[in-house]
């Protein structure tokens, strides 16, 4: 019944893997995504040749994927835990502004750029925690609570920033996050670390186990002695933290903080998570799937741009491709099980 929102018509509930584990079935599930990504890459090479297949372009794709990717990893937890968060973009904006306004930048000049990182992450976590408290203890449905946060956080960001783009003047910050040790950009490394940590947390810890339980059957979780409300707060706070991290990455990429940062991240992040195979109704989630979801969307845009497609044509094609990809993935997953 937990799948009812998704699929009004299945007779036999197809057993799908809960997380990233589950051996062959897990592979089958991601196989569709892998194939979709491979097809995309083939199209990219066929249509743009070396311009697509170069290391530079690969790194460009990864860099583009990194910011939204980190948010999507956090979103995977919230959705697996049975929730949703529309405020991620606004939180990224607020965190980026908070960390780049004059006060913080002055502090950063005194005690180092870590102050900026720290304040961004802190602001993100705090916003997430507020979401969590409203949802878990205030019992406001996640959609509404985070919609309210969306409005408030972006409004607050605008007020703090006075609608000015805040330019980062701290060279230490820019140097650190702009670096490319061994040719790999720092923000790509951060993305990799967050993904790995997310995978571990979801699949190898009691926290992850409880996330599945809270999302899959909150009443059962409660009866098993899990503090469902507290856990819910943790989940949203965790997503807030990843938003803070994403804000830092975005700050380094754009060398600015801005109240317009993170526009529509909520849709992008949720789309990546859901395409990846995490159920919107909670209880099942996969970090690896989310990673693929993010990469598919980013590669799509990249291939489009390499081919000089107009924005409108891109939008139409994107819609069609999403549908085809999902249908394909389902057929494959069904055949394997």
């Amino acid at each position, binding site marked *: 019944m937990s799948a009812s929102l998704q699929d009004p018509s299945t007779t036999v509930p197809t057993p799908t893997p809960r997380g990233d584990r589950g051996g062959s079935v897990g592979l089958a599930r991601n196989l569709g995504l892998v194939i979709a990504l491979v097809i995309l890459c083939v199209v990219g090479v066929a249509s*743009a040749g070396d*311009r*697509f297949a*170069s290391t*530079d*372009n690969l790194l*460009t794709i990864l*860099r*583009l994927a990194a910011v939204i990717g980190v948010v999507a990893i956090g979103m995977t937890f919230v959705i697996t835990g049975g929730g949703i968060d529309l405020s991620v973009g606004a939180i990224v904006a607020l965190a980026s502004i908070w960390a780049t306004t004059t006060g913080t930048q002055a502090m950063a000049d005194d005690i180092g750029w870590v102050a900026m990182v720290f304040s961004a992450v802190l602001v993100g976590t705090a916003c997430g925690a507020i979401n969590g408290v409203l949802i878990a203890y205030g019992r406001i449905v996640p959609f509404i609570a985070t919609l309210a946060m969306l409005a408030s956080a972006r409004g607050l960001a*605008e007020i703090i920033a*006075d*609608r*000015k*783009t805040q*330019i980062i003047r701290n060279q230490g910050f820019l140097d650190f996050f*702009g670096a490319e040790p061994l040719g790999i*950009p720092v923000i790509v490394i951060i993305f990799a670390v967050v993904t790995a940590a997310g995978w571990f947390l979801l699949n190898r810890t009691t926290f992850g186990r409880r996330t599945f339980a809270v999302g899959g059957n909150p009443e059962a979780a409660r009866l098993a002695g899990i503090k469902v409300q507290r856990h819910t707060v943790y989940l949203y706070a965790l997503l807030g933290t990843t938003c803070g991290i994403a804000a830092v990455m*975005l700050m380094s*990429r*754009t*060398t*600015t903080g*801005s109240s*317009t*940062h*993170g*526009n529509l991240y909520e849709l992008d992040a949720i789309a990546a998570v859901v395409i990846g195979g995490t159920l919107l109704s909670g209880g099942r989630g996969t970090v690896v799937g989310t990673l693929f979801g993010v990469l598919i969307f980013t590669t799509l*845009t*990249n291939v489009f*741009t*390499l*081919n*000089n497609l*107009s*924005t*409108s044509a891109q939008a139409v094609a994107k819609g069609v491709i999403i549908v085809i990809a999902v249908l394909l993935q389902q057929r494959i997953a069904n055949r394997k099980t």
Partner: protein
Amino acid sequence: TNSSSGDSDTSESIGKSNTDNDKSGDKVVIGFSAPAADHGWMGSITKSAVAQADKYDDVELKVAEGTNDVNLQISQVETFINDKVDAIVLLPFDGAAMTSVARKAMDAGITVINVDREFDSPFAARTTVLGDNYGMGVSAGTFVCEDAAGKKGLKVAEIAGIDSLPLTQERSKGFSDALKSCGLKVDNRVAAEFTVESGEKAASNLLQAAPKIDYLWNHDDDQGVGVLAAIKNAGRDEFTMIGGAGSADVMDAIKADNSVLKATVIYPSTQAADGIKLARLLVQGKSMSDLAEIEVPRQLKLAAPIVTKDNVDTYLPSAFRS
């Protein structure tokens, strides 16, 4: 033809400007509505309008929530009509869509000043203040042509703003028309969304799409901050970049002359402030004292001059801080 520079001021020039037009007169209630301030230029539009109104003790400004929903913007104008304001300064999200309600306001005896995005009926506004979008493209294109000095086969790239807005289309058209005159064309074009982040994203992909570029025109300096970041990330410097709108940061960069950014095209963010000034004059029955004309003109088209290292000092004081 550079008459607009006097009008596009924000602060200093007001006190000392022309005649007794700035003297306090009858109280004027002005309603102001603009699209959502979701990028720097638009933010600056609202801010300078508010700042302008604050300078007059005879002006009361009502600012409606910035919105990209024409339905809501129409309702805001309706509210102003209900409130019987004296004038409405309106920067429509979509000029055509706001025409009928603007006309309704005019019919109700309210002076409507149309800013930036034009209505499709001359009866809908008393005066229209326009930036020259097509001219922007022409200025940028002309700069490229002059700089290229007749060289052929140069690669030109363009990063546009929000593609679904008519103004973006006009800018692009002006750009390609001007390039045509010297035998160049736009080889790669992407659209961003006027925000820093979208500029960075669009530019990152564009730079991959075009391994070698000679000229890059970016429509908007606010998204340009992101474009520059992307260029730096990609380690590219083989081309000349031209900006758009004319933010102070960009002018600083032009002045410093240490990046690919060599020029920008002004698109005044003080249009709405001008609108406020004109609305006040119209309601108080005054004229523009710099003109011999007794009436305020029907239309003002602000120039879109190109700013380079050579003339940057002229424009820097009036530029907006994004």
